């Protein structure tokens, strides 16, 4: 597709290009799934991080259709980044120059009035339109019936009633897309008052001269009238800045209110359309949603329901995923071993077994957690509860400068920062989103658990504190709390410095509760898993190989007289990784760490739990033997005869791990989610850097304070 591509089909073989747009919560994505099924491709809109879902389907006569799902939009004029992208695509101004031949507007039959605002804007773009009147069943149940032929007459475009969740009306809809493609584009159905028309004429003429279709130029002129200066995402405002200001001034002179003009004109027309096409058989009565909300948003009941739901999610992400994770771990070990037998012993074998399989395996192991978490998130989102959760948490999150919607990603961070960061996508404001991405890794994830378990088990005595809570448990809890409190504090700091900006007041639609569709959930989980495996997988594979090479070269001639574990230890000590460990020893010395801990920290940059297996390798007890490792660490003495590990050092080490961003999956995902490319790397660098500084300073603080209090370390 080139920049000059005409919106008409050039050959019969070329698929029809359809863009789907609609208000959030209209079942737009369900309809997109019903049309295209699994034939979907997830990418990004050119130059932005908003996801672009593209799918395709085939008609029974072989004609093909490609469909792009545009971000959910309430209008083409509200100026959120999502809505801006939708407008750019529809006006053929986006960088990919993918121009739709037909726009499919998904409309919620129960809320026709609000939905017609967007519909009327789209109808003026100069592109053929089809309206899918979705969820007609729910509207019927609510006593709302819509005269479809009358609506077709009013809008001047094909209108097809659908129930996307049950696949009803999909075939007629597909046919309507082709019918519409052959029809002239619809036009504005209401008159702009002469006074306003005269005011707008110069701006519209300029837009038209710059290549916009006549009706689209009229729409855009009206839209630009309500634009205030200095909004960076409106790419073309700058160019027309003076003309816009002039037009606004003229409008005011003529006694018009430029900010309200578009909304007033549109809604005046819409009220007429609704009066003529919609019959309400009964007055609005309290619905099931209202009754559920009476509990879910209750001052006391609401938070209780919320905490219960979150506890279930958190618990199941941990426990249900565990057997699957064990299974994947086993399968990868078996695969690695099998692959090992096919390759002669030596570096190549070691690269495959210890580098590729062990490295990638340590990351793929998180797949079940990601799948479970996204299954839950999809259920919460589709059922409509997510909006309530954001509503409930808004007050708390606002205090640290975050958005109510930041809560779920942060909670997800307890399981794993990777899905947590991926879950920030529901946050619209880019600064809110970045601030959330920056602090999610501070939530103690499941990969820190093996480190905490090893160190607490070895160095913290099992003294009872309270009934049901021992010192060991309290220490574990303290580590989780430390991370959480810091995350909130750091978020507040980011929002006051690097990500300074007003906290957007929350305007949130609370959609009616719905039963989630299994199919949509499965699709969402499948897509998330695929993204995780593909994107993170490539980075992780290369880093795994680098780490393996650092631990393997340069080689030390093995001393056959020594036991195999001792040989491994010597090899590691002399390898590049070991050299690095020695090199950073002066740096970690103030923290009470020796070079062996230094090596383990360096090695566990890839994944925190590698700390345990590296310590295992260093002490030659094998990675999995926790008890033997504990005994070795307890007995370990430094050159001057003092104990190498004291409880104080163990606590410092744990605090270090609470803060340090030692996880390449998280870094890879941060790069991607923070904007990709250089911006992404910059944010990932900031994230890694500040957490490392925090880790170092905090661990050092623990040692200094601990020593002052008389603890050995």
């Amino acid at each position, binding site marked *: 597709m080139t920049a000059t591509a005409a919106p008409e089909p050039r050959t019969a073989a070329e698929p029809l290009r359809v863009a789907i747009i609609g208000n959030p919560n209209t079942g737009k994505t369900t309809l997109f799934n019903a049309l295209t099924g699994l034939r979907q491709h997830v990418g990004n809109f050119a130059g932005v991080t908003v996801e672009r879902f593209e799918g395709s389907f085939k008609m029974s006569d072989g004609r093909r259709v490609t469909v792009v799902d545009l971000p959910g939009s*309430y*209008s083409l*004029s*509200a*100026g*959120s980044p999502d809505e801006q992208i939708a407008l750019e695509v529809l006006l053929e101004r986006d960088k990919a120059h993918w121009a739709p031949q037909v726009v499919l507007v998904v409309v919620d039959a*129960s*809320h026709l*009035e*609000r939905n017609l*605002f*967007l519909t009327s804007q789209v109808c003026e773009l100069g592109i053929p339109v089809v309206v899918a009147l979705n969820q007609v069943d729910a509207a019927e149940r*609510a006593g709302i019936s819509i005269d479809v032929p009358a609506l077709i007459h009013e809008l001047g475009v094909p209108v097809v009633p659908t129930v996307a969740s049950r696949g009803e009306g999909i075939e007629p809809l597909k046919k309507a897309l082709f019918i519409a493609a052959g029809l002239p584009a619809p036009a504005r159905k209401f008159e702009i008052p002469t006074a306003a028309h005269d005011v707008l004429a110069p701006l519209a003429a300029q837009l038209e001269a710059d290549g916009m279709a006549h009706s689209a130029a009229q729409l855009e002129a009206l839209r630009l009238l*309500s634009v*205030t200066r200095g*909004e960076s995402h409106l790419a073309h405002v700058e160019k027309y800045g003076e003309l816009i200001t002039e037009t606004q001034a003229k409008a005011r002179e003529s006694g018009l209110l430029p*900010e*309200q003009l578009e*909304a*007033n004109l549109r*809604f*005046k027309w819409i009220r007429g359309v609704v009066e003529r096409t919609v019959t309400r058989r009964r007055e*609005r009565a309290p619905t099931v*949603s209202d009754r559920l*909300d009476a509990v879910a*948003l209750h*001052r006391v009941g*609401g938070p209780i329901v919320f905490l219960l739901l979150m506890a279930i999610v958190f618990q199941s992400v941990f426990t249900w995923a565990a057997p699957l994770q064990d299974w994947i771990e086993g399968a990868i070990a078996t695969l690695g071993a099998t692959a090992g037998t096919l390759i002669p012993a030596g570096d190549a074998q070691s690269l495959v077994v210890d580098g590729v399989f062990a490295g990638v395996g340590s990351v793929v192991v998180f797949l079940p957690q990601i799948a479970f978490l996204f299954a839950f998130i999809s259920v919460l989102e589709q059922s409509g509860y997510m*909006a309530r959760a954001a*509503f409930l948490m*808004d*007050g708390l999150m*606002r205090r640290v400068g975050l958005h109510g919607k930041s809560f779920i990603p942060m909670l997800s961070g307890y399981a794993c920062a990777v899905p947590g960061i991926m879950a920030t996508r529901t946050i619209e404001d880019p600064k809110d989103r970045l601030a959330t991405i920056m602090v999610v890794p501070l939530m103690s994830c499941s990969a820190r658990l093996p480190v905490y378990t090893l160190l607490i088990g070895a160095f913290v005595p099992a003294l009872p504190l309270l009934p049901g809570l021992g010192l060991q448990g309290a220490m574990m809890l303290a580590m989780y709390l430390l991370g959480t409190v810091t995350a909130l504090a750091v978020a507040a700091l980011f929002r006051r410095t690097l990500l300074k900006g007003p*906290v*957007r*007041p*929350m*305007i*949130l*639609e*609370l*959609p*009616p509760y719905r039963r989630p569709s299994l199919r949509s959930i499965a699709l969402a989980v499948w897509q998330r898993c695929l993204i995780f495996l593909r994107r993170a997988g490539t980075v992780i594979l290369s880093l795994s190989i680098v780490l393996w090479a650092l631990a393997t070269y340069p080689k030390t001639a093995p001393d056959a007289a020594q036991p195999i574990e001792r040989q491994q230890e010597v090899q590691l000590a002399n390898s590049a990784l070991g050299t690095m460990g020695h090199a950073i020893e002066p740096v970690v010395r103030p923290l009470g760490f020796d070079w062996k801990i230094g090596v383990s920290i360096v090695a566990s940059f890839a994944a925190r739990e590698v700390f345990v297996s590296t310590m295992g390798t260093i002490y030659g007890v094998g990675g999995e033997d926790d008890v033997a490792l504990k005994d070795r660490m307890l007995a370990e003495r430094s050159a001057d005869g003092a104990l190498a590990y004291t409880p104080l050092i163990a606590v410092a080490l744990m605090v270090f791990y609470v803060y340090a961003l030692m996880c390449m999956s998280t870094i890879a995902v941060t790069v991607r989610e923070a904007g990709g490319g250089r911006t992404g790397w910059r944010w990932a660098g900031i994230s890694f850097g500040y957490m490392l500084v925090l880790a170092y300073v905090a661990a050092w603080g623990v040692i200094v304070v601990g020593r002052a209090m008389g603890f050995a370390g």
Partner: protein
Amino acid sequence: MALPLHLNPDNADCTCPLMDSKAGNEATVVAITCGEHDARRLRALGVYEGATISVVGKKNCLLVDVRGTRLALCSGLALGITVQPLERPSIA
């Protein structure tokens, strides 16, 4: 929009911030004076000058019904929306 009338939202002739509108009452939006960006978002959601809306609940945010759509408006937004109650509230 004379100040003393704010104190008397029961008067159908008066206008008042949406914040002070009584739960369950329908009211017509008279003016939206919050930031232009938020005002645009509100209008797109059906809260425009002339729209009929009603407050259905006051939690930490304001819950508003706009033609069957439930909206949560938080932190000061409800102060920037001026409404005129449509009828006298029934005696509670």
